[in-house]
C-alpha cells in the first residue's frame, strides 16, 4: 500500500532548481531512507512532504504530492491538518524550554484538547511509544532541556507521536547524537514502522542499510534510483548510486 506519492515534483529557490522531477511512491508502514551527498535535495524533498518549505521566500513548487490520494498542495488543504497527519522530527533535538510533560502535551493543546485525563493518557502513551517513558516517568514536570541529547530526541519523537500522525518524517534524526543514543533511536524506528509510515533522511549509509525497507538515492536534485534497500546496496543499477554507496564520492 502506498502512503505518499510524488509526481513530477519540481522545486525552485529563486534561480536554484533544487528538485528536478521527483517521482516516488512511499509505502505505508515501511521505513524509507533518503540518501545522497549533502546538497542533493533529500532534506528539501522531505520538507515538501509536509509543506515545511512554504515560508521560504522565492520558492516555487510544481508537480504533485499525494498523501492518501489527496494533493497536499491543493488550495483546499489545511496545512495544520496536513502537518498533524505527517509529523516531523528534526536534525538536532529541539525540545521547547518547558517541562517534559508540557513538551509532549504541546501539540495536543494546539489542537484544542483540554481534558486533563485525556492529555495525561496520551502523554504517557506517546512517551512509551518513543521508548523514553521509563526514564522520565518520575520527573515529568522537570525541564526537558535537562535531559541528555539522546533522551531529548526521543522526547521530540514522543511529542510528534502525541498528535497521532500517520507518517513521520525524520530529518537526520541521529546526526547530532552519540552512538548509543543513535542505536536506541534506530531500534525505536523499527518499532515505529509497525504503526507509522517512516521517511528518514540520513547521511549515514550504514544506518540506511540497517534500518530501512526502501532506499532512494538523490543526486543534484534528481532521484537517481529507488528500490528495496537490499537491492540498492547489493546491486545498484545506476553507476552513480554504486559510486556513492561504495564511497567513491560524497
Amino acid at each position, binding site marked *: 500500500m502506498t502512503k505518499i506519492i510524488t509526481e513530477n515534483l519540481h522545486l525552485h529557490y529563486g534561480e536554484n532548481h533544487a528538485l528536478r522531477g521527483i517521482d516516488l511512491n512511499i509505502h505505508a508502514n515501511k521505513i524509507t531512507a533518503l540518501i545522497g551527498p549533502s546538497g542533493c535535495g533529500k532534506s528539501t524533498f522531505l520538507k515538501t512532504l509536509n509543506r515545511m518549505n512554504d515560508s521560504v521566500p522565492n520558492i516555487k513548487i510544481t508537480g504533485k504530492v499525494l*498523501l*492518501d490520494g*489527496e494533493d*497536499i498542495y*491543493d488550495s*483546499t*488543504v*489545511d496545512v495544520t*491538518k*496536513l502537518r498533524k*497527519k505527517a509529523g516531523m522530527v528534526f536534525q538536532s533535538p529541539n525540545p521547547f524550554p518547558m517541562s517534559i510533560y508540557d513538551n509532549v502535551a504541546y501539540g*495536543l493543546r494546539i*489542537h484544542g*484538547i483540554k481534558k486533563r485525563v*485525556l492529555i495525561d*493518557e*496520551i502523554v504517557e*502513551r506517546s512517551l512509551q*511509544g518513543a521508548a523514553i517513558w521509563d526514564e522520565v516517568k518520575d520527573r515529568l514536570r522537570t525541564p526537558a532541556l535537562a535531559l541528555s541529547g539522546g533522551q531529548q530526541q526521543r522526547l521530540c519523537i514522543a511529542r510528534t507521536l*502525541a*498528535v*497521532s500522525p*500517520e507518517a513521520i518524517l525524520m530529518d537526520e534524526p541521529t546526526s547530532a547524537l552519540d552512538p548509543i543514543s543513535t542505536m536506541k533511536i534506530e531500534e525505536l524506528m523499527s518499532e515505529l514502522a509497525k*504503526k507509522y509510515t517512516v521517511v528518514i533522511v540520513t547521511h549515514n549509509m550504514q544506518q540506511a542499510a540497517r534500518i530501512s525497507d526502501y532506499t532512494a538515492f538523490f543526486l543534484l536534485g534528481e532521484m537517481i534510483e529507488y528500490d528495496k534497500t537490499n537491492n540498492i546496496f547489493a546491486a545498484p543499477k545506476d553507476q552513480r548510486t554504486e559510486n556513492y554507496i561504495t564511497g567513491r564520492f560524497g
Partner: protein
Amino acid sequence: MHAGATCKKGCEELNSITGKRKRPTDIVLYSIIGLFTVAVFAMTAYFAGYILIKGLRGISFAFLTTASNPIIGTIGILPAILNTAYIILLTLVFAVPVGVGGAVYINEYAKSRKLIRVIEFTTETLSGIPSIIFGVFGYVFFCTFLNLKVSLLSGAFTLTIMVLPTIIRTSQEALKSVPLSYREGAAGLGASKWYMIRTILLPNASSGIITAIVLSVGRIVGESAALLLVAGGSAMYLPKGSFFEQIKSSGSTLAVELYRYAYSRGENEVGFAIAALLLIIVIGLNLIVKLIGKRLNRGAK
C-alpha cells in the same frame, strides 16, 4: 488504533487534510496585534510630523544666531546652542577616555570574573538611575562638595557619569568584535599589551567607539532634569570671558531652554522651534549610527 484516541470528535472525515478553517482566536489575535501596531506607529508619525510642522516655522537664521533681546523683543537661542556645545564637548572629553578605558579593562585586562561581574552590574545600575537622581547627586557632590557651583562644568561632570554606561557597553561590543587572531598575531610578534591595544585593538574598534560617542551626544542633547539642577540658570546672554570663566558659569542647554520657554513662560512657539531642532538632531544622530552600522556590516562581509 493509536490514532483514534486524540480525535474522537473532529475526525469524521477520517483524517482528510482538506477543509481549510481559520481559527477564530487567530483572527482575533491578528486584529488586536494589527490594531495596536497601527496605533503605536500612527501616533509616532503624528507626533514627529506635528513637531516638525509646528516647529520649523519658528526656526530662522536670526533665531539660531542671536541671543534674545528683551528690549526689542526678539528671541534667539544662540546662547543655549553654545551652552549645549560646551557641555557636549566637555562631557565627551571626560567620558570617552574613561568609558573606553573601562571597556578595555573589562575586555583585555580584568582576570577576576567576580570583578568583571561587579563592574558590569554597576554599569547596568548606573544606566537605570533616573536623571533627577543624577541631578541631586551632582548638586551635592560637584556643585557643593567640590565647590564647582551650579555651572556648565558641574553639568558636564554629572553627564559624564550618566553617559558612562553607554560608552562602556558600546565600546565593549566593539572590542569583542575584534577577532582574537589579531590579538594573537600581535602577541606572536612580541608586541606588548599596551602596544597591541594602541595599534590593533583601538583602531579596529574605532567605528564602535564613534557609535558610542554619537549615542552619548544624543543623551547629552536630550538631558534636562539633571542639568536643571546642576547647570541650571538661563541662556539669555551670550557667554562672556575666557573659556574657563564661561564653563564655570551657569547656563542652560537647548532642552532646558525648551522647558523654560514652554512651561515656565508659556511660549509654545519657541518651545516647538527648539523641539523641532532637537528632533532633527536626534534623527541625524540616529542616521549616523545606522550608517556606521551598515559600513561595519559591509566591512565584515
